[in-house]
Structures are given as structure tokens and as C-alpha cells.
């Protein structure tokens, strides 16, 4: 049941993206309203699907939060991107930001739903994942990733759209900074909770496991961005580094699976 609902969500996001493009091209009001209905409806269905999945896992007899395998982490990543756009971007009615954020959320959940290599069944937890730290670690990390994604969309605007344009740059730079700070806060807590968990599960809080190391690399890149921004207002450099940070985040999330390590269940 939950998978049926979650499988519908990508279509809603895709339709929202389409109407968003129509709205940008025509400037008409009705496509804009349809877009808002679609993506907010999609987000509600997305949230409901995850809650239902949680409830259904209890019905199967091994209840756990839907954050325990690759399918569930992709679905939550997609959710986190939309959630952070709601928190950080939507209030400012930045329509283009919305268009691209929805596109990214669509790609993530569509990949989870339709890739033949991703198993969407609810599985019981292996002993290593049976911990109260699972929820806090995964949620904070993915909220961090979500904020970094929104920051990267803004950075891409600075680099590719606003090239040569004069006005409005400052506001954009300020908003990237806010996204990065929020992401950095969440990601710092994510690494900390992960360390506490590793301390209880593996006997050390830090062991240079590939996923741990790449999380540190990502964290260091964003820490460097926060320092670069203090040197002088150099928004292009910050924007470039934000995109590098995104690449590092995605590698931390996905690429590390190709390097062997203890986090191999994600």
C-alpha cells in the first residue's frame, strides 16, 4: 500500500515541474496555481506514504522507521529536499528555485520507485541497525543533504543564470549562505550522532570507514565555504565551492557504496 502511494508521488512532482515550466514561459496565473496544488499534494502524499510504511512495518512484526535501506533513504532524501525548500525557499516565493528543487526531488524519488535494482519491500533490521540512534542520525544527515541541494540550485543560478546580470545578486548570495549554514548545522549533528552510534555499535566513534571519511570531507568543504565567505564577498567562488560540496555530498551518499565499508547497507 505504502509503495503504491509512494509510486504516485513522482508523477505529481513531474506534473508540478511541467506546470512550473509553463508558468515561467507564459507568466499566467492558473498554471502557477495548478503547480502549487500538485507539488503540495505530492508532498502530503509523500509524507503519508512514509508514515504508512512505518505503520505497515509494525504490522509485519518488525517495526522500524522507514530509514533503513537504499530505497527508504532515497525516498527520505527526496522528502528532505522538498521540506527544506518549504522552510528555506518557498516563503520567499522564488519560483525558479521551486522549479529546479521539484525536479531534483522528482529524480530522487523516481529513481527509488522505478529502478529495477532497488528493492522497495520492507525488510527487517539487521542487528547493527537496531539502535535508537538510527532515526536521529539518518534524519539529521538527510536534512543536511537537503539543505545542500537547495543551496546548490541557488549556486547554479548565480553561475549560469545571473552571469553578467547586476541586480539581486546580494540577496541570492545571502540565501545560499543561509542554506549552507542550516545544512552545516544538520550535517554536524548528523556526524555527531553517527559517532555516538558507532561508539556503541562498533567500539569506536571514528574509524576512517569510507562513508565516515567522505562525510568528513563534505563537512570540511562546507566549513571551508563558511570561511571563504568571510574573506570577501566573492559569490562566484562560493557558488563553485557549493557545487563541489554537492558533488561530495552525493558521493558520500551514493558513491561510497562502490568502496567497501561498514556502511554497505545504505
Amino acid at each position, binding site marked *: 500500500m505504502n509503495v503504491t502511494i509512494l509510486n504516485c508521488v513522482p508523477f505529481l512532482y513531474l506534473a508540478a515541474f511541467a506546470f512550473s515550466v509553463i508558468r515561467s514561459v507564459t507568466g499566467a496565473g492558473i498554471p502557477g496555481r495548478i503547480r502549487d496544488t500538485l507539488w503540495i499534494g505530492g508532498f502530503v502524499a509523500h509524507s503519508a506514504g512514509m508514515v504508512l510504511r512505518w505503520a505497515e512495518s509494525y504490522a509485519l512484526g518488525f517495526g522500524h522507521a522507514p530509514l533503513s535501506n537504499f530505497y527508504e533513504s532515497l525516498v527520505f532524501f527526496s522528502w528532505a529536499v522538498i521540506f527544506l525548500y518549504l522552510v528555506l525557499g518557498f516563503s520567499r516565493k522564488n519560483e525558479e528555485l521551486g522549479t529546479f528543487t521539484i525536479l531534483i526531488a522528482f529524480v530522487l524519488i523516481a529513481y527509488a520507485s522505478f529502478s529495477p535494482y532497488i528493492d522497495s519491500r520492507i525488510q527487517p533490521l539487521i*542487528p547493527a541497525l537496531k539502535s535508537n540512534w538510527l532515526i536521529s542520525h539518518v534524519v539529521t544527515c538527510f536534512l543536511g543533504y537537503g539543505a545542500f541541494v537547495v543551496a546548490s540550485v541557488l549556486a547554479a543560478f548565480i553561475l549560469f543564470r545571473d552571469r553578467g546580470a547586476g541586480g539581486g545578486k546580494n540577496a541570492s548570495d545571502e540565501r545560499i549562505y543561509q542554506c549552507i549554514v542550516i545544512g552545516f*548545522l544538520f550535517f554536524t549533528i548528523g556526524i555527531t550522532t553517527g559517532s555516538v552510534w558507532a561508539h556503541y555499535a562498533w567500539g569506536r566513534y571514528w574509524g576512517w570507514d569510507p562513508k565516515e571519511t567522505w562525510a568528513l570531507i563534505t563537512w570540511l568543504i562546507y566549513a571551508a565555504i563558511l570561511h571563504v565567505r568571510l574573506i570577501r564577498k566573492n559569490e562566484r567562488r562560493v557558488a563553485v565551492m557549493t557545487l563541489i560540496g554537492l558533488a561530495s555530498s552525493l558521493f558520500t551518499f551514493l558513491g561510497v557504496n562502490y568502496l567497501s565499508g561498514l556502511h554497505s547497507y545504505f
Partner: protein
Amino acid sequence: MTSDKKSSSCNQSRFARFVSLFSSPKTAAILLIAVAAASSVGTVVPQRTRETATGARSVWDEVLLALEFHDVFHSSWFFLLGALLCASLVLCTWRRIRVRRTAVKRTGPFFRRGDLPRLGSLLLHFGAAVVICGFVYGQLRGINAYVQIPEGETVSLAPIISGYQLDQDLSIRCEDFSVEYYDSGMPREFRSEVAFIDSGTVLKRGTLLVNHPVSFQGIRYYQAHYERLPRAVLNVDDAGQARTITARPGDVYHAGKETFFRVTRVEENFMNMGPAMKIDFFSPAQSGYIWVLSGIEDIKKMFPDLLSKAPQFDPARFEGFIFGLDRIEPMYITGISISYDPGLPVVITGILFFLSGLFVVYLLPGSRAGILKKSQTRSDEP
């Protein structure tokens, strides 16, 4: 005198310039990126110890070895980078305190409203330095070991914990091990019942579960791993003299001066013929092996000419002995991680400093970053 004073003040200003350059955000950004780049090398080049890295090597391997790329996170240059980052953080903290003290001398009270973000930033950088120091201390003085204990057996901890505590005769026994499975066959939970023993006296008993370590005398023990280690119960008829032996792979039994046999494999289901064990036998007259099957009588009825075609299944193949496999007991060997980290309290303190600093700097209303309230101006001070 005058020139002395002049040169000293000149030195001081040069020193001050060095401090401000070394603790500047620019240096910080460069060092952060350098540590990130170095760490990424450690995930791409296979990491191993120097011993396993020896053997057949190409020129390229030699280069990697010389650069310590085979063990980046314990290499001298990675340590140096960490030390530089730590020094930069300490200098940054120190400079902030000095600036603060000068400001206090000029304007009065040490703490005023609105100073909180600046103090938070100080706390944050100091905390990061403390974390690095605590981590390095733990790496240098801590223990990280792994032992495997077959069910029911005792392993001495002395070689692992020697030098860290007075209790030199400490050993650990795995009294029981059990695994529970989901219906799908996936392990649901595995646990070891362990006892800490000193010269025959049990000092503490505990249950080790994944995610639930046991602490004893400051050292923590973790359920890390397990393997099946089936044990065979076999009957040996030694020229009319029968005895029953419980054996695991590797066990050797002497039947005479130069006559002995060794259990080499114990299989719960060998080639779909049920429980089986392999025995290698040695005597001055004869040496070879036997596969002892517990269902040999039934199999012989199905294939009457089995023993002439495949003599390795003949329980009486070894002169003067008749082997019979009674049953196989599903036993386990438990893998336990042992850890002691004296740097841990330091690291925790540092993280608490860092996190509280981070929250003060970025989340307090009206803070410099202006996350909750849009900032109009930006302080020049990093």
C-alpha cells in the same frame, strides 16, 4: 637599548602578523581543503598495514609506500596537516581572547549583550582544537583489538591489555552464544554470554549484544561478529577399545607414538549426504584421509559397491581403527571487539564546546549569521 627595543617591537609585530595570517579565515579555508583532499586519497588508495603492503611491488607501489599513501590516516604528513589545523584553531582562539581583553580594558565589562556570537565563535574554534587533540591522544594511547572465542572457551586478555591496567591475569570466557533468525533466514539478533575471570574467579558476567557493549575495568567489549564452528561427536573403535571424542577442525588425537589423526573438516551437510567429517590419518605404515559420514549405513544400502569405488568413505580405512560419526553440534565462535579510549572524555568535551558555539553563532536571534533574522551588516572579524 633603543635598538634592542626597536628590534623587539619589530619582532613582535612580525610575530603578530604571523599569528593573524596563520589564524586567518584564508589559512583556515586552505587547511580545511587540504585535509579534505588528503582524506579523499585515503578512501581511493587501498589502505593496509605496511606488513601486508610488502611482497611483489611495482615502482608505482614503491611511490605510494614512500608517500605513506597505503596508510594515509596514520601517516606523518596527515598528522602534520592535523597539527597545523589545530595550531591555526588555537592561535585563532588566542587572538580572539587578546582582542577581547584589549576591548575590555578600553570599554569596561568583559561581557555585554551582543557579545554572545563572538564568544560562541571562540568556543567553536577552541572546541574543534580540543576534538583534534583528544582524537590524537586516543589514537596514541588507546586499545583497539579483536578476539575470537569459541563457545565455552576462555581466552586470555593479558597480551591485549598489558600495560593498561594492573589486572594482568584477566581472561574472558564465552559461556554461551545464541543467534535468532527472522523467517527469511536473516539474523535478527546474536548475543554472547561472557564472564571476566581473574585466576579462576569470575569477577563479572555480562551479555554482549550488537549495539549494547559491556564495560569492565574501563575497557569496553563489543559483540562484533560470529561464525559457525560446528563440532563433531565421533566414536572411535581402536582395536576393540571404544571411545567417544568431541572434535573441532584442527584437533589432533594421538593413538600411539607415531600414529595420530587430525580432524580437518566438519560439515553439517556434506554433498547432500548429511553430516560428515574429514579425518587425516598418519602412521608409519599408512597415511591418507577418510570422509566419515553419519549416514554411511543407509548410503551403503543404496549403493552397495560404494566402498570399493570410493574407499575414502570407508570408516575402517585407517588400519586398526573404525570411525563413526555420532552427530554434529552446531557451535559458534564469537568475535568481540575490545576498545579503550582515554581521549574520549576530551573529544566529548570538545564536541560539546563546538556544538554550543555553533548554535550560539548561527541560531541565536540577532546573531552575526542572521539565520533567523536577516542580517544587514556583516562583522569584519572572522
